[in-house]
């Protein structure tokens, strides 16, 4: 078919209305309805954290037919994603399963794979094992351990000890009540909530915060006490502090994790004064 056929959006070979029963095709040449449809922006412009339906309206540009001449065309113009839409209300720490809420089947990972990886991660044998890898193990007390210590402690990290800290295999029934604390960051107006019960160590906390505040996007890093972020820079841009039950603001990382999880009331990512 030559290009000219569609140059003006309307092929010249439309049949006359008689050839198609009116029942099937009531209007010919047919017009596309004026569609106001925002399909983009689910990952970009979801300001409202509660938005979950796949047809929720978004802040991205509305799509309208460009001119009345386009009888047959649905020439919907799509505006590029605006940079302000980048600050979306991303998933909470708890919503790991649906990274872009509202989008069915995106990213395109088969449902078998999703179900398998989900059920595998709830059956992890060792709670001190980092979810991203085994190269550096974090002892339940919070310091890094090396190979020899690992062998010796392997007996200690028995299933009994593990199971007390393991997330319950059936994700629907939480083993302990969740402990949400507010996390604020200097320079960001929006506070987040984090469930400390699901976090298993300082490293995990650091990763969680990086994910929540999208540090990787802005090339930032935050020191979490003695355990710096996975960027491992000595001069990080931010410092993590917490408010304990006495109301004092302390540096995170100097106490064993268990103690910290019990006493922390709020977290604050402070800008480091260099």
């Amino acid at each position, binding site marked *: *078919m030559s*290009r000219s056929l*569609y140059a003006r*959006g309307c092929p010249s070979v439309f049949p006359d209305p008689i050839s*198609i029963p009116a029942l099937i*095709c009531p209007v010919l040449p*047919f017009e*596309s*309805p004026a*569609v106001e*449809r925002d*399909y*983009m922006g689910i*990952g*970009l412009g979801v300001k409202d954290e509660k938005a979950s339906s796949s047809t929720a309206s978004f802040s991205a540009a509305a799509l309208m037919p460009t001119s009345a001449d386009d009888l*047959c*065309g*649905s*020439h*919907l*113009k*799509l505006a*590029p*994603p605006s*940079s302000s839409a980048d600050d979306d209300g991303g998933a909470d720490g708890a919503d*790991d399963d649906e*990274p*872009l809420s509202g*989008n*069915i*089947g*995106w*990213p*395109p*990972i*088969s*449902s*078998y794979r*999703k*179900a*398998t990886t989900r059920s*595998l991660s709830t*059956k*992890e*044998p*060792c709670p001190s*094992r*980092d*979810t*991203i*890898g*085994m*190269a550096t193990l974090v002892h339940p007390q919070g310091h890094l351990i090396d190979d020899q210590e690992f*062998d010796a402690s*392997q007996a200690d990290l028995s299933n009994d000890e593990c199971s007390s800290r393991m997330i319950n295999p059936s994700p629907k029934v939480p083993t302990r009540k969740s402990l949400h604390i507010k996390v604020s960051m200097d320079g960001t107006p929006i506070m987040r909530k984090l469930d400390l019960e699901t976090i298993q160590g300082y490293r*995990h906390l650091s990763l969680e915060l990086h*994910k929540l505040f999208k540090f*990787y*996007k802005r090339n930032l890093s935050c020191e979490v006490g003695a355990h710096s972020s*996975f960027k491992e820079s000595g001069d990080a841009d931010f410092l993590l502090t917490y408010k304990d039950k006495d109301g004092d603001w302390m540096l995170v990382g100097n106490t064993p994790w268990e103690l910290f999880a019990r006493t922390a009331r709020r977290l604050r990512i402070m800008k480091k004064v260099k």
Partner: protein
Amino acid sequence: MKRKAAEEEQETQVDFKATLVVSKCKCPTGEDESPSKVSPLLPLSDDLMEHVLKFITDHKDRNTVSLVCKAWNALEASGRQRVFVGNCYAVSAQRVAQRFPRLKSLSLKGKPRFADFDLVPRNWGAFVLPWINVLSESHPFLEELRLKRMTLADDCLELIASAFPQLKALVLTSCDGFSTDGLASIAANCRHLRHLELTENILNHKSGAWLRAFPVSCTSLVSLDFEDLDHDDIDFEALEGLISQCNNLRTLKLNRAVSLLQLQLLLAKCPQLIELGTGSFSPGVSREEQAKLGDCFGKCSQLRTLSGFWVVAPGHLSVIHPLCSNLVSLNLSYSPICDGELSDLVSQCPKIQKLWLMDTVEDKGLEAVALSCKELRDLRVYPDHTRQGQGVSEEGFIHIAEGCPNLRAILYFCNQMTNAAVDVMARNCTDLESFRLCIMEPAKPDHTTNAPMDEGFGAIVRHCKALRRLSLSGWLTDKAFEYIGQHAKKLERLSVAFAGESDVGLQHVLRGCLSLKKLEIRDSPFGDMALLSGLHRYESMRSLWMSSCSVTITGCQWLAHHKPRLNVEVIQKRDKDNSTLVDSVYVYRSVAGHRGDRPSFVMAL
């Protein structure tokens, strides 16, 4: 004549298409050949042709042969043993059974690919039972059955087991609707079963008892793959007994219920394995046990493919190091290992061609891969579902592009990408046949320049002339589609999501990609004009799927009316108030007419 026969055979094998054009089997006259010369235009006798056809095994070649003339069509059909049906609704089972009386192996594919991502409602169709009902009467000597994305229940499996006593291979990929009870009936009744392979199926319920159903005398198994049956109970003695009897076993892929020590016991019984799916690679064992395991792995000198690694006990990946130098394929896509462990592993795998990973290895891990694995042909990087790490980015992509020039297929899930990185890959890996890039945020631009990803994908289609499969992501305007239409002449499968600006984009593709077979689109602003611009194309394609686009019911009706040999199936949610937009439209060519087993939500136009 004998000399001519030999010549004919040779010609057929080397370039039979030219031969087909030349040999006019029914019309030898019209050429001035002197009678003394041996003329290539003499008619070929049926016996001779049948003999020649035995050497032609490829589906496409046989399809071409059958199109030459009616005689050849009949001859070819009477001899064909393997049939591949790419869309189970394109042809009826009766027709297949009638045309191919000597059918021994049948491959069927059912649902559209987007069913994997929950975009196709349940009970959509693709039932196997009608096929089995027909074949059980006409082809009781069926030997192989391969099904992908189809629905079959336990009674269907029982029917298969009872109707096909000679069944040698049953391969189920991404199927659903059955349970381990059905498998037990297969195991019990198919005495000649050689291949039983289950991949990524979704079963109703699973229990480990099915392994006991194999008869005590079973020795025929060559490959047994039940990786996706995640039942926790397993009759290990039954499995052990089965394995020790089947001396021809070459492929064994175990499920998660098998622990590391149990794996050791099994490996001791079958060191001749070529492909192994380790069970869960845990729980951890002591150093001595690890050493023993390493020895055990070392004895399996023919092992070339490893997969499984469901839960890797910390530090235990090193037990497979003795195998690494011969390893060709490694699937670690379910193991969240880190870059350190991966680099230890791949530095010893110079021959590896297929590597599937999880993005927990991050860019550093990919750098290690690029350094060591120069023969890499197929790379997949899947995202960790918890998304706690930073995943992979364009840095890892560039490492791979620069380090692995032999790459043929890549699937890459990343958080961010740049046009420059994709360009590097396009220039370095020109043999790419399958390029699937998934930037996980829909319609995300190049994060350094904020430009659309048009130029990157444009470079891919321009430089990779052999490209057959392409999946798009990121922010893409119509320009990207223009490039694709212009350059991707060999493209057969295209997957589009959250891309494009207007109908013109899809028009470029439909007009330009002449080899296109499967087109699947979701959440893109293509409407009726785009759909109808491919009017002349759909009959040469296997299928088109468009969901959450701007296609209206009127457009679909118009298409259906003008192309009666196409099946146009529409799913439209009832609760949409007065909207004429359809949720999804599925267009495919068919000689069987509309299917009778449509669920209520699917409208056939």
